[in-house]
């Protein structure tokens, strides 16, 4: 074996070599390697450049806590993922990875100048800089900062991968598949019920994967798991968040560990798990030690060195020094030596160490230095040696080495416990918080609960040194480049709360969420503030535990499944006839039917003319419909709408206006009385659900004594609108059981019969001002009836029209569209709809508000029409209206244009608007300032065509 790969050992498969590349250079590893272990095996020490100072950085940990080795993995076109932790990237043949945050290369990074001038960039420096000159911010500071900031580069191409998502339920969920977790799973399984075990690594075992003595027992446990029929085991699955009532979010990685050619199906699956009971077995994360130049590549956690040697068969160096404050460092050193790694020395800051450990070290030929501390690390892109001294202050001793392993103690992982608001208890022995009292049905086991023998240690963050901590480059948070002196600086600047210290220094705010820096930062803050750690508290843990892809959170809401697009029963016919569509609420509706290369303007002019000349057919199926049934139906409607309903005879229709309790118009629609106790209500397309909800609210919680029920029938009925002077002629041969004569079937009436053999509720209503019908038939027969009407209409020149034409025709008649001409602040009087308000009704929803003082004040916006002086000038909807275009800016604006169209019937443009005291201004000229010109228009009544309504009553 060359380089740093040990001759034997590890769980890798040496019979399956894999080729991969890092920063364009080719390397080799084995099946079972991670990117990190394969690179270390190849002698790579330099993995990236730090966030702020661009210092050369290497691997620190071998798990999700890794702060430095963030890489970008390229799985092919548009499949570039930045900020992945190298130890968590499974190696596959052909893997392509590169380092981040450096230019032009990892070895020669120009931005390392930041490190040279590092004294100018202490914590919080940006709160005091980049302010002068102010003009330089936009052109210079911001672009440069944007270039330098961040770690990896975001992908810019659309993610082509698919993602899956699912809910799952179980009686017990165990998070963490180490020995403690597997044991808990088997115990739970014995009680019956569904048990799920998840682990973020690619195989179960946790810490035991680095201890060959436990592998046989581990295999036996895995066999028992496989034999248990009620246990589901998912590896490569990270629980990222623990939410109310035992709801866990987890992401399962399905294909990233495979070569792209072998990957099929979804890339990741989001699991939304509801568990009866949750067991957290997430283990503990080792703490680094804080000493001068502890960030030189080659300085890493002792547990990482152990994992590399025993799980992956890789030596971290040819001469390894262990700097310990904890027994586990000694155990790791002995394990390394046993695996064939040369451990030159163990330096322990404690004055007394267990005799068994000291003896074992000497037996292994490892030099031992008790009561000493490293005072500096030598080397720039790799460790070349350390200097240490007794208590950090004694005479300096130098030691050549190429790797330094830190054993700073253990922090039980309490992230998920804290998401679920479990309390934490400070443990002096661990120098960390342990799970206390849970709120959810949850308990912690194993090292994550402080229930594991890691040995003893002393809690010390910053090692003693003759160098003042403020002069040291002693790093606490590697990813965010936060040094011990920054925490002292924060306290010096007046920060007292740990939340402020965190935010001022950014300690613990990187993508690793402080997994290796929170507790050390807390210790340093405690020393600086002179207060015990438990009194300072701990910053809040928030999901996600590790970064998650947007894709996983999106699940299958992508492309065709992004959101339902609702289509009416006529939609296919419209598509076949070349309709151009628009979105209305969550529906799509035909907007116009262009013929022979027409643009929208031409199509709409033709459609409008056709309707008024002969007959047009329009799909109104998306309108909301509610069946109101019961002896108190009329009473209920009377209380809801402004109009009087009790006197409406069965077979007649009425335009209903619905207000909110604050008096403003919220919806409208024509509704029919089918029988004494049955009404067919309509609402706007976008208002259907809202209106039904509003009505149910009153019915259930205010007027529950009324015997009336509401049923949504929006999708029960297809609605075919037939409008124009020939409308009756078209349907006469198709209709049976209904007398269509003008007197027998007046405007605003409804009849039941059949059309084309299909039962129908035939409304005689018009939104166009022409003779018109709305043919309601069951939606399953909608297309059939539409086609029958279309065929029958051919002889009459029938024309299909869309929503745009519908808008123009109603505007010519001054009919409002709620939500377009109204904006939630208009009363019936504002809109000229007083006629729809029942004067004798003692009460209805919104009535009391109409009497509020403001509602009657002069200056309220009122609904009027506008005719531009230049008849071809098309006003822009939303354009502001002013009375005096020469007034100094800001000009007083008196209203805005709500609807604006080219009218075929008038041969010119028309517009509707709401302006202050609009009705009093009829006949006056107002002005609409637009970029480059001011448009003059005359205020008119909102009615442009057939004011007498003679065409309606034909």
């Amino acid at each position: 074996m060359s380089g740093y790969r040990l001759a034997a050992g590890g769980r890798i498969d040496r019979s399956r070599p894999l080729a991969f590349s890092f920063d364009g250079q080719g390397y080799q590893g084995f099946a079972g390697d991670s990117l990190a272990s394969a690179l270390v095996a190849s002698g790579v020490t330099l993995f990236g450049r730090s966030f702020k100072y661009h210092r050369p950085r290497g691997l620190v940990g071998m798990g999700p806590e890794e702060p430095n080795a963030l890489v970008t993995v390229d799985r092919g076109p548009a499949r570039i993922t930045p900020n992945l932790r190298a130890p968590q990237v499974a190696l596959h043949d052909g893997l392509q990875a590169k380092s981040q945050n450096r230019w032009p290369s990892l070895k020669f990074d120009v931005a390392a100048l930041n490190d040279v001038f590092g004294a100018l960039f202490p914590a919080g420096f940006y709160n005091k800089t980049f302010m002068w000159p102010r003009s330089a911010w936009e052109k210079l500071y911001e672009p440069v900062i944007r270039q330098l900031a961040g770690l990896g580069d975001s992908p810019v191409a659309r993610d082509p991968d698919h993602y899956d998502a699912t809910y799952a339920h179980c009686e017990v969920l165990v998070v963490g598949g180490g020995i403690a977790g597997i044991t808990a799973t088997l115990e739970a399984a014995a009680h019956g019920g569904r048990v799920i075990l998840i682990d973020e690594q690619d195989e179960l075992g946790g810490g035991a994967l680095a201890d060959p003595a436990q592998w046989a027992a581990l295999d036996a446990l895995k066999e028992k798991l496989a034999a248990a029929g009620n246990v589901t085991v998912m590896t490569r699955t990270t629980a990222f968040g623990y939410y109310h009532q035992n709801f866990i979010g987890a992401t399962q990685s399905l294909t990233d560990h495979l070569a792209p050619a072998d990957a099929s199906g979804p890339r990741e699956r989001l699991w939304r798990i509801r568990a009866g009971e949750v067991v957290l077995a997430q283990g503990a994360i080792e703490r680094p030690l804080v000493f001068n130049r502890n960030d030189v590549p080659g300085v890493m956690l002792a547990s990482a060195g152990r994992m590399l040697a025993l799980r992956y068969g890789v030596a971290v160096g040819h001469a390894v020094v262990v700097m310990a404050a904890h027994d586990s460092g000694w155990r790791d050193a002995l394990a390394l030596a046993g695996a064939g790694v040369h451990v030159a020395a163990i330096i322990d800051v404690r004055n007394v160490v267990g005799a068994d450990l000291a003896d074992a070290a000497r037996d292994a030929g490892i030099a031992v230095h008790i009561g000493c501390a490293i005072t500096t690390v030598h080397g720039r892109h790799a460790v070349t040696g350390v200097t240490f001294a007794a208590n950090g202050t004694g005479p300096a001793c130098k030691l050549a080495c190429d790797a330094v392993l830190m054993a700073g103690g253990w922090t039980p992982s309490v992230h998920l416990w804290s998401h679920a608001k479990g309390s934490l208890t400070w443990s002096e022995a661990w120098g960390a918080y342990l799970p206390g009292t849970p709120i959810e049905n949850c308990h912690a086991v194993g090292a994550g609960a402080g229930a594991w023998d890691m040995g003893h240690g002393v809690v010390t963050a910053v090692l003693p040194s003759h160098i003042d901590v403020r002069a040291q480059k002693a790093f606490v948070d590697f990813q965010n480049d936060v040094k011990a002196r920054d925490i002292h600086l924060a306290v010096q600047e007046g920060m007292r709360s740990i939340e402020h210290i965190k935010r001022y220094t950014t300690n613990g705010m990187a993508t690793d969420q402080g997994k290796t820096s929170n507790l050390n930062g807390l210790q340093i803050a405690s020393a600086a503030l002179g207060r015990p750690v438990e009194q300072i508290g701990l910053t809040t843990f928030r999901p996600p535990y590790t970064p998650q892809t947007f894709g996983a959170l999106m699940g299958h809401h992508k492309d065709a499944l992004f959101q339902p697009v609702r289509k009416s029963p006529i939609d296919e016919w419209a598509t076949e006839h070349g309709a151009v569509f628009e979105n209305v609420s969550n529906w799509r509706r035909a907007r116009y039917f262009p013929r022979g290369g027409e643009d929208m303007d031409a199509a709409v002019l033709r459609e409008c003319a056709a309707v008024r000349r002969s007959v047009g057919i329009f799909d109104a199926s998306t309108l909301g419909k509610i069946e109101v049934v019961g002896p108190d139906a009329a009473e209920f409607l009377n209380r809801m709408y402004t109009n009087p309903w009790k006197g409406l005879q069965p077979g007649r229709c009425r335009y209903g206006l619905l207000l909110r309790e604050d008096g403003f118009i919220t919806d409208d629609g024509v509704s029919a009385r089918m029988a004494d106790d049955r009404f067919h209500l309509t609402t706007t397309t976008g208002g259907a659900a809202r209106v039904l909800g509003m009505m149910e609210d009153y019915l259930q919680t205010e007027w529950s004594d009324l015997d009336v029920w509401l049923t949504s029938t929006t999708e029960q009925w297809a609605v075919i609108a037939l409008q124009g002077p020939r409308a009756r002629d078209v349907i006469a041969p198709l209709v049976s059981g209904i007398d269509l004569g003008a007197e027998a079937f007046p405007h605003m009436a409804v009849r039941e019969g059949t059309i084309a053999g299909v039962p129908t509720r035939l409304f005689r209503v018009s939104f166009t001002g022409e003779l018109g019908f709305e043919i309601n038939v069951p939606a399953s027969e909608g297309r059939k009836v539409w086609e029958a009407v279309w065929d029958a209409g051919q002889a009459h020149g029938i024309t299909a029209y869309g929503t745009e034409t519908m808008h123009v025709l109603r505007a010519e008649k001054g009919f409002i569209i709620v939500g377009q001409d109204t904006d939630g602040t208009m009363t019936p009087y504002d809109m000229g709809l007083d006629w729809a308000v029942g004067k004798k009704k003692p009460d209805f929803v919104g009535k009391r508000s109409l009497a509020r003082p403001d509602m009657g004040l002069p200056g309220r916006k009122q609904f009027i029409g506008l005719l531009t002086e230049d008849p071809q000038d098309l006003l822009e909807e939303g354009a502001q209206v002013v009375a005096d275009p020469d007034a100094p800016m800001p000009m007083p604006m008196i209203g805005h244009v709500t609807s604006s169209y080219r009218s075929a019937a008038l041969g010119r443009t028309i517009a509707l608007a709401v302006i202050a005291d609009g009705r009093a201004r009829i006949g006056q000229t107002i002005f609409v300032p637009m970029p480059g010109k001011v448009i003059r228009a005359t205020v008119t009544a909102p009615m442009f065509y057939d004011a007498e309504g003679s065409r309606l009553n034909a």
Partner: protein
Amino acid sequence: MLEIAPMAVAGIDLKRGSQPITGAVYGLAVTLAPAAPLVRWSLRAKDAALLSAALGRTLPDRVGTHHDGIARLGPDEWHGLLPLGTTLPAVSGQPLGMVDVSARSVGFTLEGPGAVAALSRGCPLDVAKFTPGRATRTVFETVEIQIWCLAPDRFHVEVWRSFAPWLWHALAEAIG
């Protein structure tokens, strides 16, 4: 430059299947099929006995259960799923609300050991605990549905007509 699909065209080509699809979820077989056309009734009453008499049928008593084609969805709400041709009795003047909504919704059936997993892809309820006779209104992702458990591993799903293509596609994708 990032290219984003315009929302107006997302999903426009989805069609509700007319033929059964058989597949599997986590290796468990499941068939998704369009249900036969049915008569659908929305039935409302404060007095269950009155409604029962008007229909000439016994009604399920517990909210969230069904029998003989009628489910009780709420304290004053029942829903009928009955064979084509069943006529809704006409009543007037009584404190009852009876509406034919046969065309409002369409039905799917999911059958097989993988049916629960297919539904769990978008339904947050513990569907594995549903026993025959259970019926409830609920959601599949953002779409409102009714689930009726007809037999172990056999479910009838009701969805409003315009949401049906999306739901069919979502379930079809689940069973791959």
